[in-house]
């Protein structure tokens, strides 16, 4: 079946872990954005959710860092962080190993992707799931792009990975939704935590929703680090979604800088055509 939904969202741990400290109006707006996405995924009839994340050393470390990895487990667990710290109770999450295997096999025609039958989800996947599949009743297939330990996955490879993922999803009989999760600008877990470059974010989102490939791929890591912090490296997940929806346009459903959540909180979608 053709891919049935494509979106992007933030995943900062403060969204759930420091929820009560966020501006209530902005936090409500963010929650409504997530709820709109949850509903859209449900309405799409999606049978599996592929979450394209930028995990933070929960599974992958500099001893053996893949540029891309796709999960192939029967189940996953998360969050790896302390439940109370993240505000999300630890649980098991259903995978879909057979579908994973078919997607991985197909993607491998274009991209040398690693795969993993074990995966502990960190906030990078658990925060989106908390809002998008709150009953954990939809099979999830995790995907990781190295956005943390340089040398990082090149942006143009993230785009090509998105294209390959789209081909693989469209070839599967299942209805598949994809959600990329990351950035945009932020300086998480550093002394600059809470700093957000709203102008840069809005410019990036304009490039994203209009799917301007050349502009999306024109950033250098030095520029991203300077303007958008090390958290900005996670735009790779958005770029993968843009690659998977090449030629389509999208819509921003919510964007607001929320400093205590340490990120420009974002919920956006791309049309799947």
């Amino acid at each position: 079946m053709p891919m049935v939904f494509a979106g992007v969202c933030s995943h900062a741990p403060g969204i759930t872990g420091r929820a009560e400290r966020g501006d209530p109006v902005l936090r409500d707006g963010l929650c409504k954005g997530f709820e709109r996405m949850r509903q859209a995924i449900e309405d799409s009839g999606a049978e599996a959710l592929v979450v394209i994340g930028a995990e933070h050393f929960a599974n992958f470390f500099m001893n053996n860092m893949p540029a891309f990895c796709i999960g192939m487990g029967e189940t996953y667990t998360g969050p790896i962080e302390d439940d109370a710290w993240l505000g999300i109770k630890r649980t098991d999450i259903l995978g879909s190993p057979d579908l994973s295997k078919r997607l991985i096999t197909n993607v491998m025609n274009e991209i040398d992707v690693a795969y993993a039958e074990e995966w502990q989800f960190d906030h990078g996947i658990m925060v989106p799931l908390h809002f998008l599949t709150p009953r954990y009743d939809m099979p999830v297939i995790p995907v990781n792009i190295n956005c943390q330990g340089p040398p990082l996955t090149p942006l143009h490879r993230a785009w090509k990975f998105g294209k390959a993922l789209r081909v693989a999803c469209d070839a599967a009989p299942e209805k598949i939704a994809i959600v990329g999760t990351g950035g945009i600008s932020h300086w998480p877990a550093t002394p600059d935590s809470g700093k957000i470059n709203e102008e840069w974010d809005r410019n990036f989102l304009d490039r994203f929703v209009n799917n301007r490939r050349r502009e999306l791929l024109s950033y250098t890591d030095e520029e991203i680090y300077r303007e958008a912090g090390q958290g900005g490296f996670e735009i790779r997940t958005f770029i993968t979604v843009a690659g998977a929806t090449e030629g389509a346009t999208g819509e921003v459903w919510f964007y607001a800088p929320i400093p205590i959540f340490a990120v420009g909180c974002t919920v956006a979608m791309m049309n799947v055509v």
Partner: protein
Amino acid sequence: MSLYYVQKLLYQLNRDAATRAQFTEDMDSVLAGYALTEEELTAIRMPDIGLLYVLGVNGQLLMHYAALKQFEWEDYLQAMRDGVAEHGPVRAGIYAMTGE
């Protein structure tokens, strides 16, 4: 310096409950498995979160070690600021990338 092994230790602590339990019970028995300098060992044992930041430990690892050591969020952020004031700019790793 051996930033790689400092971060590897924190990676294992963050993801493995058994390592965390052993670390709490007998810290040195865990530290013995990693090739660390005296400065790094001191920073981990105290813990000196600010020095660990200055040594170049990624915040995605460090914030969980700070939480394990009962640092509240604002105290964690302040510890890094104090670390820079006391020990100077970040010496290595991703935060030293552009020399800001």
